[in-house]
């Protein structure tokens, strides 16, 4: 993987490179080099803390879209065993941006569903930049129904800019496919754990996002529309994306506050892309922690809890004495 850096990561990375060089010079004889290394390490720690404790929502959006960020299939390798992919919606075709399969999480058999982005140009095209078509959502629904039938819990990973806006997608009912998943997931008789691992883009994200526990990685985002899309509509200027990201409050701490998500999964220092293994370990632990209590919950109670969770989302002013 070619490592790439965001602008605000640059000062940290430059210092890290210098540190690497110094470490190579250090043969244990020169006291000055040792001292220099110590100083540099301190400095890196300080700058990293400064940058990462003051991230803007737009910077977090960039981290969520970071080209080196772990994707669904990376986490499949890091957190799961015996993955078997399942293909196709049995009606039209297989949709590669949406991946479904059986997997084992610490011995617990689950059905895994999520969006997959591509790393290089070919992969990106093959995965349609992580934007699913209706048949992708219908494949997900087919597999979820199977999970219900065979009493397997469902884990979904959200990482998409949104559902694909194309002619074919509209012809084949993109809106119906999304809507159907929302309805069916809301009363699917098996536990569902949702994890936003990168970009949670609009209805295309939510279409696999209705569940019992909603987790979000620390530097992921979840929004009603992309900051660019919002800026283009409300400001008629995509350059206002940064402001739109601030306004829409799309980060994990924001959404925890609004009751949209249940827990935030901390990421390694500098973001998940700096240490895939560590990110995978934390994610795995969080998934188990969220899933295990659900497994013993009676289904009617589970469904009532899921219904109430989404039923109560929203901010409403009711005048005193209001009927509803």
């Amino acid at each position: 993987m070619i490592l790439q850096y965001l602008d605000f990561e640059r000062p940290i990375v430059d210092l890290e490179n210098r540190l690497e060089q110094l470490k190579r010079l250090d043969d244990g004889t020169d006291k000055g080099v040792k001292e220099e290394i110590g100083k540099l390490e301190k400095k890196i720690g300080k700058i990293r803390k400064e940058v990462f404790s003051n991230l803007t929502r737009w910077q977090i959006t960039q981290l969520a879209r970071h080209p080196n960020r772990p994707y669904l299939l990376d986490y499949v390798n890091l957190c799961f065993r015996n993955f078997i992919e399942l293909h196709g919606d049995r009606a039209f075709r297989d949709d590669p941006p949406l991946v479904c399969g059986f997997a084992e999480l610490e011995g617990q058999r689950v059905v895994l569903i999520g969006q997959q982005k591509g790393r290089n140009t070919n992969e990106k095209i093959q995965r349609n930049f992580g934007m699913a078509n209706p048949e992708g959502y219908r494949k997900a629904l087919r597999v979820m129904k199977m999970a219900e039938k065979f009493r397997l819990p469902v884990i979904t990973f959200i990482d998409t800019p949104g559902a694909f806006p194309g002619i074919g997608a509209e012809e084949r009912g993109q809106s119906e496919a999304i809507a159907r998943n929302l309805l069916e997931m809301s009363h699917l008789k098996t536990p569902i754990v949702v994890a936003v691992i990168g970009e949670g883009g609009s209805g295309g994200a939510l279409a696999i996002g209705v569940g019992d526990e909603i987790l979000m990685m620390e530097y992921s985002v979840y929004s009603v529309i992309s900051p660019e899309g919002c800026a283009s509509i409300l400001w008629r200027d995509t350059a206002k994306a940064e402001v739109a990201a601030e306004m829409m409050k799309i980060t994990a701490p924001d959404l925890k506050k609004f009751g949209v998500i249940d827990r935030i999964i901390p990421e390694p220092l500098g973001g998940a892309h700096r240490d895939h293994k560590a990110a995978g370990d934390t994610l795995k632990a969080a998934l188990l922690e969220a899933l295990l209590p659900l497994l013993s919950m009676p289904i009617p109670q589970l469904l009532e809890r899921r219904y109430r969770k989404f039923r109560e989302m929203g901010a409403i002013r009711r005048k005193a004495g209001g009927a509803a």
Partner: protein
Amino acid sequence: MAIRLFRKKDESDRKIKIPEGMWIKCDACLEIIYKPEVERNLNVCPKCVYHFRIPARERIRAVIDEGTFVEFGEEMESVDVLNFTDTKKYVDRLKEAKKKTGRKEAVITGKGKIQGDEVALAVLDFEFQGGSMGSVVGEKIAITAEVALESRLPLIIFSASGGARMQEGTLSLMQMAKTSAALGRLSDARLPFISVLTDPTTGGVAASFAMLGDVIISEPGALVGFAGPRVIEQTIQQKLPEGFQRAEFLLEHGMVDMIVERSRLKATLSTILRYLSGSGDR
């Protein structure tokens, strides 16, 4: 030169003296049509059958038996939970919408009768912030579905919306899940839901309750889709085919059951209701 200018002004003055707004131009056939006649015709162009967008109030008048509509949830108001400002403050946008429509939000909900049969009803109002769905619209739709469930009534929703309301951020997105979940319960209880799509029904409203009807009816020519035409054009860098995302296109692709003209809508709803009623859990 001066005289000509003067005369021109005089002419235009005289034009304005015609009772204002008695004649309007049809958006589709561009014919000049007599407004009272259009109104008598349920706001459908008498020349080309173009269906004008109508406010929620008029919609209710057109389909619900006179004097039977009882509204609920009208006291609910949106909260600017994000402290959102784009080119205008969200609170100001809300104020304007309230002033323009005389209503607190973009949906009217209640119970009423259609040719004697009681129904739970929600009608979105495009005039209020483009019929967009924020927390209140989502809540009122969910309540209407729950009222239908409790009172064992069929549910009818008229959609007219650009989608989720951006100014309420991810909470708006979650209204898609909330409304769909409420419809799931209605469906489990085998109570009918008829969705009527009117111009336009797009985005988060299309991708939630609007496309979940047991029967889906569209008005002629209504724009219905997930992504807006402009977004699609930008994404695929192609011109869109004529009639793309219009009701007739959806019918052809199997996405709606039927297209029904406004004049026949009430009778059609009544007939369908009679096929589906009496199927609730017993």
